[in-house]
């Protein structure tokens, strides 16, 4: 712990890098997963092939995917972001589809009866009602991405993983723990943060 205390500013910088990796990966993942999730919720017969493909990617251990990405895209930030975005698809698409499909049909009919357009129904009825489940999907994805982003340290993308791997190479466990303890804390805080939002959304929509 003394190493961690002595290098606090450095660890803080690595934490920000870590969050940048996770944030960028998550943002790109959402650009793909939200349309796909809504689409599979509306047309359930396309669910199995979409979930199947995303599931195959999800089942392959992340280090193997990352190694392939690094082989073709080189070291650094973007290959890691790409792997994070690919890995997030399964959790996101499946949960977004389930959340949207779980909105009661009666509510949608009522919105139609009020004369709301398709887009209005989506933004004012479906999204608010699905919000707790959507936040749950974000929570699970964020936690998974924080974990996978630690591997970024191995391929020159920085983040808390770089401290972990420097320490392992030098067999200096204090340095390793200065990366892995903050990574664990970050994941626990992200979990708590999204759980709080989920509870607030549940109160509002319930």
């Amino acid at each position, binding site marked *: 712990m003394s190493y961690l205390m002595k290098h606090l500013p450095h660890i803080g910088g690595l934490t920000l890098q870590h969050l940048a990796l996770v944030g960028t990966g998550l943002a790109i993942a959402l650009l793909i997963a939200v349309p796909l999730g809504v689409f599979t919720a509306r047309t359930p017969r396309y669910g199995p092939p979409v979930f199947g493909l995303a*599931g*195959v990617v999800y*089942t*392959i*251990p*992340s*280090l*193997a995917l990352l*190694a*392939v990405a*690094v*082989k073709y895209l080189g070291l650094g930030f973007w290959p890691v972001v790409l792997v994070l975005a690919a890995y997030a698809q399964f959790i996101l698409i499946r949960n977004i589809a389930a959340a949207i499909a779980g909105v009661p049909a009666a509510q949608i009919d009522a919105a139609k009866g009020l004369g709301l357009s398709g887009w209005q129904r989506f933004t004012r009825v479906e999204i608010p009602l699905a919000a707790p489940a959507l936040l749950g999907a974000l929570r699970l994805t964020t*936690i998974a991405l*924080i*974990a996978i982003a*630690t*591997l970024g340290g*191995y*391929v020159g993308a920085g983040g808390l*993983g770089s401290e*972990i*791997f420097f*320490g*392992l190479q030098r*067999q200096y*466990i204090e340095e*390793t*723990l200065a*990366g*892995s*303890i903050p*990574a*664990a804390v970050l*994941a*626990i805080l*992200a*979990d708590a943060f999204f759980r709080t939002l989920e509870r607030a959304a549940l109160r509002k929509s319930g």
Partner: protein
Amino acid sequence: MTWDDLLLHARAYVALASAALALGMLAGIPLGAASSHVRALRTPVLTLVNIGRVVPSLAMLTFMVPLFGLGFRPALAALALLAIPPIAINADLAFRGVPAAALDAAAGMGMTRTQRFARVEWPLAFPLLFTGVRTAATEVIASAVLAAFIGAGGLGEYVTTGLQADQPKWLWTGVAAIAVIALAVEFALAFTQRRLEKGR
């Protein structure tokens, strides 16, 4: 790189993952059974288990190094700890989902507590419990690759050597073997689960 070498590494990888999964079941199922039966245990067990589920696997592996040094033992301990949460959470849900009427009927038939557990609760809880084991297996198989970083060997070594020494052959062999094993286990477990659900 030879076939023998690949088999040796694959065997070490599978042995590590299955030993960890077995330990995870040994600890996780009783934990879930306890938390579902004893009200006072539920919150502390589920809180602890949730923290265990959230901690990144690479971090969990490194946490075991000060306790066990480098090698197989810290990897086994870390992977077992990663396997416990999904198993315990599902076991808790599974046992709590057993209908009270079924238990009452069994008691009315004169079954003892042990008989009720073995013949009523366990069979009814099993399919959901199995889902937890399946989640844990996916997690352990992915994390067992990372065990190479703390000196536990296995197929992860092919990937790390392939990247560090820029040896595409090693890299691809490792990636392919890992992907094949992970997908094969996933398909086998998904198949088993479908059969279990049909048998209900």
